[in-house]
């Protein structure tokens, strides 16, 4: 049995289940309660669970993320919501200098079982302070895990897995995915967070991507298939630690790798993936690893400019064709 739900509803169901099953779990963040969540993810939860467990916070990212760390140290299992990744920079000190360091710095004495959820990504004309994709940047940091659910099942299943993790986990929900509809099995629950998934099989090239770009990659693969080019599409799902085996094995079969990443190219996640392919499966390659990333600009507001700044199906198709044509 399955049912049709939105990505938003899948996340809400996961939060709701956690609140019901574990008295240590609570949700806090800006506008998660009375407003129902900036993206309406937590709508109805305040009414159901009350203000002790659905906590509206002041606009004080640093203290409510730090309080999440402290509460986790004190035996709770907090879910902290930050409206968007851009705002998370106001709490970057707590995430980098405390959450990620405490276990190591204390010689293994203090683990921080904290989950931080935040919206990420562009495509909604929200301009340069609400649209960036900094998950790859967080994936740079040892001591935290970085998850990026692209599918309804992952939106539903990554949160319970994250809450079971003894260490800090950041979940990046792409704001353009909240309205995505899809089938979810009646008994959907926790999913594995330690591996990438092959979302489409193919033999001619491997497209490595994650989050909302997955759908652009899948559409591109459909179009390429009409030309007889069979692209394999890999959804990374977890950006730290990277499941490199899945994409290395794929590239060893297809001999071509194209990374599609909504983050910026310079020093980004796409650079890391490209480097690992060079280091570990270089002699399987028929040509250089290629990348389709966001243009190196702060995200513009005007739609035509924003579209041009983001990876698109067309740019993926063009790059893939060029790679295959090259031989």
């Amino acid at each position, binding site marked *: 049995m399955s049912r049709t739900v939105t990505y938003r509803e899948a996340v809400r169901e996961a939060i709701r289940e956690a609140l019901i099953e574990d008295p240590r779990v*609570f949700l806090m963040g800006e506008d998660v309660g009375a407003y129902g969540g900036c993206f309406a993810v937590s709508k109805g939860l305040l009414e159901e669970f009350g203000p*002790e467990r659905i*906590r509206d*916070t*002041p606009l*004080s990212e*640093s*203290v*409510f*993320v*730090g*309080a*999440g*760390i*402290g*509460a*986790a*140290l*004190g*035996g*709770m299992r*907090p879910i902290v919501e930050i409206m968007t990744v851009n705002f998370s920079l106001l709490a970057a*000190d*707590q995430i980098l*200098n*405390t959450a990620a360091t*405490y*276990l*190591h*710095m*204390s*010689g*293994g*004495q*203090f*683990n921080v079982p904290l989950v931080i959820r935040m919206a990420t990504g562009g495509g909604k004309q929200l301009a340069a302070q609400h649209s960036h994709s900094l998950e790859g940047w967080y994936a740079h940091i*040892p*001591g935290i895990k970085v998850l990026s659910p692209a599918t309804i099942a992952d939106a539903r299943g990554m949160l319970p897995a994250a809450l079971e993790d*003894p*260490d800090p986990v950041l979940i990046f929900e792409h704001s353009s995915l909240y309205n995505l509809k899809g089938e979810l099995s009646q008994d959907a629950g926790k999913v594995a967070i330690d591996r990438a998934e092959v979302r489409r099989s193919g033999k001619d090239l491997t497209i490595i991507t994650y989050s909302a770009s997955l759908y652009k990659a899948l559409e591109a693969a459909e179009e390429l298939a009409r030309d007889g080019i069979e692209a394999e599409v890999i959804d990374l799902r977890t950006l730290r630690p990277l499941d490199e085996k899945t994409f290395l094995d794929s590239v060893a079969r297809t001999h071509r790798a194209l990374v599609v990443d909504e983050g910026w190219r310079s020093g980004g996640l796409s650079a890391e993936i490209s480097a690992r392919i060079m280091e570990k499966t270089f002699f399987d390659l028929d040509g250089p690893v290629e990348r389709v990333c966001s243009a190196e600009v702060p995200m513009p507001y005007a739609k035509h400019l924003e579209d041009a700044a983001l990876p698109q199906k067309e740019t993926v198709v063009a790059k893939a064709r060029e790679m295959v044509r090259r031989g």
Partner: protein
Amino acid sequence: MSLDRAHGHHLLKEMLRIRRLEEKSAELYGAMKIRGFLHLCIGEEAVAVGVLPSIRPEDAVVSTYREHGHALARGISARAILAEMYGKQEGCSRGRGGSMHLFDRATRFYGGNAIVGGGLPIAVGLALADRMQKRNSVTCCFFGEGAVAEGEFHESMNLSALWRLPVLFACENNLYAMGTALARSESVLDLVSKAASYGIPADSVDGMDVLQVEEAARAAAASVRDTGMPCFLEIRTYRFRAHSMFDPELYRSKEEVEEWKKRDPIEGLARLLSDRGLLDDPERRRIEVEVEKEIADAVEFAEAGTLEPLEDLTRFVQSERSTVR
């Protein structure tokens, strides 16, 4: 608590333990046994010794990078502290933290945090966990007056008052944020009024007088425990030594330091005790000898300590399932 002989001797000894540990640390730094940053609290001993007895073993402590005194007064052994500064695995953080990052689960000592203001939100969260789990605990959060300029101070004051969280905010005002005098960094110098503006009960005490610190901290901790509301206590103190071992102290005069040294919290208490007939020379010598022995033993322990094997370098980036609590 009335000042009887035993209590007076206890306070004196606790402050001397910190003083001698710090002096030894400075010496060992000079001998290259301790490296990195080393921030000494010589002159500020009355803060740790006066404040920490006001909380219970099950309570939590959050501290700063100038935390040797807090750690020792909280009950972490001089052995574990010195071994940590030596970078040995017998240290209280296995040599991963060093002087600025002493941690101890047994005494709920949540670390020296070396980001100014960074510990306050953690303390707020620990108190939130206590509140949500209906524990009648107090979280004691030490920070310097320099942290008052950080946004995290104000965010933490606001949230802890708004949510009524049991935190004792212990602000050690030693007048200088590294080398920046309070008057050169704050538009309003009255720290008590800053906390009070958030609806937090706030008080100030002479941090060179351990008896006054003890009394004020006891009242503040009791208020936190009874009302569940945070309290702010400014403890006016002075650092006799440089900020760190790299500080040439260009920002204050020798005369100023000498003036403050006349108010040494240890000698002040010793004078008071002997004036009241509660301390004689043989007693003082006996205490000094006991402390000296403890510190010598700690040095020996640190010297004999072992280095963590290199294979362990990447341990504790993620929890090991077997050690998760």
